[in-house]
């Protein structure tokens, strides 16, 4: 991965460097947007590593992240999750299932009017907290909610 992208993704000294690079024609604007898939974060096998690889270690617990999930999942392969961040300036939303073999499920970058709201359906291997982290104003915040997943049987 070229160094410019790595710098941008890790979020250190990004803006100035990237702008210079673009102006110099070394980096096309489209390249920056098409960020490379965060293999380290998606491959992390525990929450601590996943958060570290997303640069959000030490995210503060927040009551302003609303997580709508079922109490007991009908089927762990299709669990509806709805996330709303009331924190002003939310620029990204990340969803994890703490007890999944690889906790990071998805990461969303918001821009140009996209509201801090995501609705999706995820796979949960077992009863676990669904954790959400958001980035807002250069800081990271987090919240979680437990979803019970029973080993199915009949289900009529």
């Amino acid at each position, binding site marked *: 991965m070229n160094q410019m992208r790595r710098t941008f993704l890790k979020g250190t000294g990004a803006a100035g460097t990237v702008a210079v690079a673009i102006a110099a024609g070394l980096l096309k604007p489209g390249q920056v947007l098409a960020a490379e*898939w965060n293999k380290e974060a998606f491959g992390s096998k525990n929450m601590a590593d996943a958060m570290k690889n997303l640069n959000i270690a030490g995210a503060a617990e927040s009551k302003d992240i609303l997580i709508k999930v079922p109490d007991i999942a009908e089927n762990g392969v299709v669990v509806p999750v709805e996330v709303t961040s009331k924190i002003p300036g939310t620029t990204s939303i990340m969803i994890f299932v703490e007890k999944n073999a690889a906790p990071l499920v998805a990461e969303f970058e918001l821009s*140009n009017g996209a509201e801090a709201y995501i609705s*999706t359906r995820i796979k949960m291997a077992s009863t676990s907290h669904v954790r959400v982290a958001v980035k807002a104003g250069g800081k990271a915040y987090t919240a979680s909610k437990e979803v019970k997943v029973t080993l199915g049987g009949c289900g009529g």
Partner: protein
Amino acid sequence: MADGMKMRTTLQGDTADVKVLMNHIMETGTRKDAKTGQLIPAHFINHVVATLNGKTVLEAQWGAAVSKNPFLGFRIKGAKTGDKLVVNAEDNKGEKLSGEATI
């Protein structure tokens, strides 16, 4: 026109509510083939970009834990009737899906 995607949009005031349903197996790579006992290779959408009138509103990276035939809902403030919404997705094999809708 959609290729592997269905989209529904509604407009309330100046907020567009977007719902997308994609057609993809989202194979995790941890399941074993019942007959051969071999691991079925991971095959999942890992990149999604949504634009409104050409401007990126949402860029997402996914892992295989997003459910099969993925559902995605998001909202855009400052939208108006006639705006063009495009969603492009790519999977870990480089296969692409896309969908378009007019708000």
